[in-house]
Structures are given as C-alpha cells and as structure tokens.
C-alpha cells in the first residue's frame, strides 16, 4: 500500500507549523518547542523515505537527529534558565540587548 504522499504531507505540515511557531511566538520555551516540531517533521520524512526506498540508513539518521535534539534541548533549557535568573523574563522581545 502506498501512503508515501500522506506521510510526507504530514511531515511538511508539521514542519510548516514549527516554522510558523518560531515566527509568531515570543515565549522562548514555545520557540524551542517549535524547533522540536521541525526536527520531528524531518524525522518523519527520513523514516518514510527509509521505508519507501528499502534502506535502513534513513532510520539511522533519525536516531542521530534525536540525539542532537536531546543535546540541544539540554543546552537550550540551560540557557533559558540562565537568562531567567538574570532578567526575570523569557520573552524574546524583551531580550534585545545586542540589538542596541
């Protein structure tokens, strides 16, 4: 049965939602969650290509993406906590020091 179209369109939709989340939200935590959404959409695309091309390489890549996402979440949340300690906010629009 061929449901490659459904899987890939789902992946595209979730990726787009992630992009939209990054663009419209100003809470750093939800910003991060949107990035997780995009990574997951990429994972779904990898897994479906792996299935339809009869190759496990795609799944190995999903594994690596997950590890990178875990590392990214740990460091990212550490940064958010550090910012919150100094500035008492996680609103990205209030964190414009470098913008001058």
């Amino acid at each position, binding site marked *: 049965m061929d449901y490659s179209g459904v899987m890939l369109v789902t992946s595209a939709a979730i990726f787009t939602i992630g992009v939209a989340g990054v663009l419209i939200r100003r809470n750093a935590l939800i910003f991060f969650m949107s990035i997780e959404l995009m990574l997951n959409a990429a994972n*779904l695309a990898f*897994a479906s290509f792996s299935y339809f091309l009869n190759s496990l390489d795609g*799944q190995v890549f999903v594994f690596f993406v997950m590890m990178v996402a*875990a*590392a990214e979440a740990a460091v990212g949340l550490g940064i958010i906590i550090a910012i919150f300690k100094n500035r008492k906010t996680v609103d990205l629009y209030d964190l414009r020091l470098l913008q001058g």
Partner: protein
Amino acid sequence: MDWFVYGFSALAIASAIMVITRRNPIISALYLCLTLFCLAALFVLLEAYFIAAVQVLVYAGAVMVLFIFVIMLLNLDPEKMIVEYFQTPRMISVISALLLFGFLTFVFWTNNITGERGYDFPVQITQGGGHLKAMSSKLFTTFLLAFEVTSILLLVAIVGAVVLAKRKV
C-alpha cells in the same frame, strides 16, 4: 491500516497547531507530547519499531519531561498576547509559512520518490535476526564515526548544561 495512517497524521497536525497557539506553556508542552506520540505511532506504521521506542523514550520520556520541569520551575504567567497574532508582521509570517507548506506539498504530491534503492527489504531483515540487529549493524559499522561524534556531542551538552545552570559559588 489506512485509517490508522490518516487518523494519526490528522491528530499529529491538529495537536501541533495547538502547540503554537496555546497561551500557557505547560498546555503547549502537553500537546507537543501528543504530537510526539502520534509520530511514534506513524513510525510503527512505517515499520521503524526501534525508532518508535526511542522516540517515546527520548522525546516523551526525557526531553519533554525536562521542558515541563523547567516550565514548572520558572512558574511563568500565561502570555497575554492573543490579539498580537493578528498584527501585520505576524500575518505576513503566517502567510509565508502557508506558502512554504503549499510548496512542499506540491513537490511531494507531484513527484514520485526517486533515488537509489537500498537492499534492506523486510523479509531479509526478519531472516537476518530482526529489525534491531539490522539497525545496530548499520550503526556500528557504516555510521560508527558519526555515532562516536554523537557521544562527544552529548558529553559537551552535559557539561554545557551544568555550567549554564550552575549557581555561582
């Protein structure tokens, strides 16, 4: 089977939309968990069992717990900004995101998947000792260097997180 694919895809997309539109970060995080579960179910339907288990174990079990833990620790107030979704710059970003979606969908619908086919057919995987075995032999031979680099990356992330979150002595 068909209905599982459509159902989980629809649920994943719906809860992903909820993630970026809820005001309270905890609710967002829980909807993200739901999305991750649906993706794990889709992985099972794609016969990627190991990936599905790791998805639940790493994402839902570790990353999202970390997220919720941090949100609870910071104890943020919900944002008071629903109106701001409809300001002009945001509308522009939403429209460009929709364009991106249209473009991706167009590409996926109109093109068949081309590319070099592999040799990991389900029958051979079963005969060779199961999905996990096939996967791990790939992981520890072809992708060994990448695997080791990933472990260094994780170590760096651990040290980085500890340094960032540490109180000044």
